[in-house]
C-alpha cells in the first residue's frame, strides 16, 4: 500500500525512501520488518513515527539514518543515494549530515558535556561554528554545565547534551529514537520543546520514533506503522487524536 504523500516537490525532502524493504533471517526465522515502504521527510518539518512494538518504526529510522542497510528499495538523503555508499562513505554521511538522539542518552562518560556536544565535529576534524554552538548551548540551557561529565548530570541534562550534540553540526536531518523514553515527564517535555524549537525557529528537520502520543503531538506530522507498512498519517496532531488513531490501529494488528 502506498499512501499518498503530501504535496511537495521531491527536492524538498530531507530524506526519502522508496519501496524500502528490510528482511531479517531466512526460512522459518524470516521476519519482514519493513514491507516496501515509501515515505519522505520534508525539510523543516518535525515528523513522528509511531506504531506498536515490532511495527518496524525503529528499523525504518535505522535504515533512513544509514545505521542499517535495506534489503530492497532506495533511500535518498538530500541528493545522496545512500544505497550506493560504502561503509566509509556512509559513516562520513552520518558524521556530517545526520544528528542522532538515542533513548539511552549515549554520551561518552570520559568526555565532558561540551566535548560530547562537539564530538561529531571533532571526529571530522572540523571546527564548530562558535556562534551557532553558543546559541544551541544557550537554547538547551547547559552553559553552566559544560565542564561536567555525564555522570555528574541528571538524565534530563544528559539528554539535553545529546540533543545539543545532534544539532551542533547543523545536520540535514536529526533522527531521535525514543528520546524521552528514559525521562520523567517534565524532562521529557523540555527535550521535546527543544526539538520542536529547532524545527520552528531554526528550520531543522527532525524525525522522531516514539510510542508516546504526547511526544508525537509535538510533531507536524505523524506517520503510523504496523507490520512493516505505513498504515496511516496525521497532520498537526494532538495527543488525543494520536491516541485515538493508535487505538484504532493496535487491536487489529495485535499478535
Amino acid at each position, binding site marked *: 500500500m502506498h499512501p499518498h504523500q503530501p504535496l511537495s516537490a521531491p527536492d524538498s525532502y530531507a530524506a526519502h525512501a522508496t519501496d524500502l524493504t528490510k528482511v531479517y533471517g531466512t526460512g522459518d526465522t524470516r521476519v519482514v520488518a519493513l514491507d516496501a515502504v515509501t515515505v519522505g521527510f520534508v525539510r523543516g518539518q518535525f515528523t513522528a513515527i509511531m506504531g506498536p512494538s515490532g511495527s518496524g518504526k525503529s528499523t525504518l529510522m535505522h535504515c533512513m539514518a544509514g545505521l542499517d542497510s535495506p534489503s530492497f528499495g532506495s533511500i535518498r538523503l538530500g541528493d545522496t543515494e545512500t544505497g550506493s555508499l560504502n561503509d566509509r562513505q556512509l*559513516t562520513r554521511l*552520518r*558524521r556530517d549530515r545526520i544528528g542522532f538522539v*538515542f533513548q539511552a542518552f549515549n*554520551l561518552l562518560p570520559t*568526555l565532558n558535556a561540551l566535548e560530547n556536544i562537539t564530538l561529531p565535529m571533532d571526529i571530522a576534524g572540523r571546527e564548530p561554528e562558535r556562534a551557532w554552538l553558543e546559541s544551541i548551548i544557550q537554547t538547551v540551557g547547559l552553559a553552566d554545565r559544560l565542564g561536567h561529565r555525564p555522570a555528574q548530570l541528571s538524565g534530563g541534562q544528559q539528554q539535553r547534551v545529546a540533543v545539543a550534540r545532534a544539532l551542533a553540526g547543523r545536520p540535514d536531518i536529526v533522527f531521535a529514537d525514543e528520546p524521552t523514553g528514559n525521562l520523567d515527564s517534565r524532562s521529557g517535555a523540555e527535550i521535546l520543546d527543544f526539538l520542536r524549537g529547532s524545527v520552528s525557529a531554526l528550520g531543522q528537520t527532525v524525525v522522531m520514533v516514539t510510542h508516546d502520543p504526547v511526544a508525537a503531538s509535538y510533531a507536524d506530522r505523524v506517520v503510523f506503522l504496523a507490520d512493516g507498512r505505513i498504515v496511516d498519517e496525521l497532520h498537526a496532531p494532538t495527543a488525543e487524536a494520536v491516541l485515538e488513531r493508535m487505538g484504532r490501529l493496535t487491536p487489529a494488528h495485535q499478535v
Partner: protein
Amino acid sequence: MFRTALRNVLAHKARLLMTMLAVLLGVAFVVGTLVFTDTVGNAYKERFLTTLRSISVQATPPFDEKAGEPGTVGEDTLRSLRRLPGVASVTGSVEGFAAVAAKDGHPLGGDHSTAAGNYFPQADGKDDRHPLTAGRAPTGPDEVLLDTSTADRGGYEVGDTVRLAVDGPVLRKKLVGIVRTDDTYGSGGTLVLFDDTTAQKLLLKPGQYDGITLEADRGTSEERLAAEARELLPKDSEISTGAQLRERERADAAEGTRGLSQVLLVFAAIALFVGVFVIGNTFTMLVTQRSQEMALMRAVGAERRQVTRSVLVEAALLGLCAGAVGFLLGIGVAMGIRQLFASTGSGLPDGPLSVSPSTVLIAFLVGVVVTMLAAYLPARRAAAVPPVAAMSAVHTPPPARGLRRRNAIGATTIVLGVLGVLYTASSGEQGRTTVLLPATLLLIGIIVVTPALSGPAIALASPLLRRFGVPGTLAPRNARRNPRRTASTASALMIGLSLVTGLTVVAVSATTALHQRAENTVRADFEITSKNGGGLPASVHRTLAKSADVTSSSPRRQSAVRIGGDEVTLTGVDPRTIGDLLDPGFVSGSLAALGAGGGKDLLIDTSTADIYGWTMGQRVPVVYDDGGRATLRIGGIYRDDEFLPPTMMPLATLQPHLKEIEDASVLVRTKAGDGETARHSLERALDQNPLIRVRNTDDLAEAAGGEAITLLVNVLYGLLAMAVVIAVLGVVNTLAMSVFERTREIGMLRAVGLQPEQTKRMIRLESVLISLFGAVLGIGAGIFLGWAAGRLASDSIQGYEMVIPWGRIAVALAGAVLVGVVAGLWPARRAARLNILTSLKAD
C-alpha cells in the same frame, strides 16, 4: 554450585581462554623445566652407563711434586697389570692439548677445550673409548684421528692433511680415520688422537701414561682387582672402582642439573607471578559483569560463602584445564630449552624425554593453585554484592573503593624497599643476596601504587596523542577509567621489564668497565698467547720482533724464583718498549724504574705487595731458577689488573738465569693498528699456527668476561621472555574486556561518524599507552635495581661505573609500542566490526 560454575566456564570460554593461556604458559614453563632437567639427568646416567661400563678400575698416578707435573706410569706397569688374574684388558691413556686448524687455515675450537690423546688399540685392534666411524687406527708418527664434529667443522675427510700444533711449531699429519666421541667436543671443542708412541712423545714422555683403566673379567670383583692393582701401581695413586666412578659422575651431574633446575624454576615462578595479575584481572572483570547475577543468587538464598566458592570452583576448573594443556605444552618447552642449551654449547647430553609422574601432578597442582589464588580476591568481592542489586534495573557495578589505603600501603612498601636497597647496596659483600628482599619489596610497592600512578602518567602522555584526533583524545581517557585494571595490566609487563632492564644495566656496565680497563691498561695493539694455557716458545717473539709490521714488542717472559720462603713468578719485560705496550696505574713509582737502577728494580702490583708485605723501595733477596742469587729493589707498585702481569722486571736481568725460555705472552704494536689487516699479517708471520691466539684489547676484554656476560644475559632474556609473553596476553585480555564493556559507547561513536579505522586506532592507542606505562615503570625500576646491583658488583669489577644503556632502553620502549599495537590488534578489530545497532542496545 559446581554446575553453576561449570556453566559459567563454558559460557565465557572465549574470554577465559586468554586467562587460561596465562596460566598454562606458566605451567608449561614449570613442566618444561622439570622435564628438561629429568631428561638431562637421565641422559647423564645413560651416558655414564655406556662410557664407564667397560671401566672396572681407574687409576691415576700421584702428582710428581718434584717435577711439578702430573705423575706417570710406564709400559712395564701396564704389562704387569695385564698379567693380574681376572683382567680382561688394560688401557693406558695419554692426555694433552693440541690445537687444530681448519682446512682453510682458521683455528678451530675457539676457547673451548682442544684435547689430544692416544688411540690405544686392544687385542682386537680397537680402542673402546673411541669407536672408529671411518678409516683406520693411526700407526705412525705422521697419522692422526679426529672426532666427527672436529672433522666436520674443519672440512676434513680421511686422507686429508691436518694442520695442528701441540706446543710449538705447526705440524702436518695425515688424517687416517674419524672417531665418535660422546664427550663435549661436539659443542665446540676439538679432539685429536695420535698413535700411542706419538702421543707419548708429543704430549707426555716416551713410554709413559698418565692414567690407566682396567676392565675385569666376568666374575672378578672390581674391589678385588682394585686392591691387586694397587700393589703394582706407584704409591699414593688415586684408584677408583668403576662403581665409585659412576656414582661420582652421577652425583656431579645431579648437582649440576639441580642447580640448573632451580634457576629455571625461579624464572617459571616469575612467569606465574605475572600470570596471577592477568588471571586476577579477568576474574575481576567477569565478576563485575556478573554482579547482577551474583546478586540474584544471593537474593534467592545463596550465602556469601557459596558465591565465593562458586567463583573459586570456576577458577579451579580453569586451572585444571590450564594444567592439562600446560603440561602438554611444557613437553614442547622442554625440547625448546634443550635446543637453547645445545646452541649455547653447554654440551649437555642428549636423550629421550623423561616425564616423571610427579611432573604431571605438579602441572595440575600449579595450574589449580595459581588460578584459585589469583581468583580469590575477585571471588570475595563478588560475594560482597548486596542482594538488592538484583532488583535494580540499571546495571551498576559495585563502587570501586578508594585508593587511599592502597596508596599508603604501597608508598610505605616503596620507601622500605628503597631504604633497604640503599642500605644493602652500601653494605658491600654480604649485601649481595640480601638485596633481593628489599628489591622485591620495592617492586611490590610499585605494583601496589600503580593504580594511583596510572592517572597522572597517562595524563602526561595525553598531549602527545592529540594529533590522532578523537581516537587520541579518547584513548588516554579510556585507559584512565579503571585505574586498577590498567595498573595490573601494566604491572604484569613491568615485572618482566624491570628484571630485563636491571640485568641489562649491570651487564652493559660491567662489559663497558672491562673494555674501558683493557683499553686503558693495554696500549699494545695485540697480545699473542698460546691457546693451551702454556707458554710460547721464544721463537714467537723473535719472529714478531723482526716483522716489518711490528713497531714495538715485548715478551712477558716468566720464571719461578724463590724469595724468602716463597715461590714467586717474575715476569721479564723489555724496558725500552714496555711503555708503548702497557700503562699500569702506579700507586708509587713508574715504569721508568725498569730502565734505571741498573736493572735491579722490580715492579709489583698491589695484590702481590699485600700478599708478601713488600713496600716501595724494599730490597728483596731472590734465588733464581738456576740457583743464581741477586737482590732486587721494589721500584714501583701498580694497581692490580687482570690485563697486567703481577710483577715486571727488566728482561735482561732475568734472562741469563732461565733454564728454558717460555713467554706467557708477547705484546706488540703494529703499523696498521689493531684491525683485522694487522691481525692477519701477524697470523701469517706466525705460520697461521692454530695454537697461537692473536687478540686485540676488545678480544682481551671479551675473554676476561665480556663474552660470558653476554651469553648469560642472552639466556636470561630468553627465560624472561616467557614473563613478557604472559604480560602481553594480559594486555590483549584487558582490551578485549574493555571493548566488551564499552560496546554501547563504541556503537554510539560509530553511529555519530567514527570510522572503523578510527575506532581501531582508539583501541590500539589505549593498548600502546598501557604497554608504555608498564614499560616506563619497569625500566625506571630496572635502572634503580641495576644501579643497586652495580654498587654490589663494583667491588669485584674494577672501574665499574653505571652505564645506562640508552640504546637498549630505546629498543625496549619501541618494543613496548610494538607489544601495544600487537596486543591491540584483535580487540581493535573486534571493536571496529561491532554491529552498530546491536551495540547500541547492549548494556
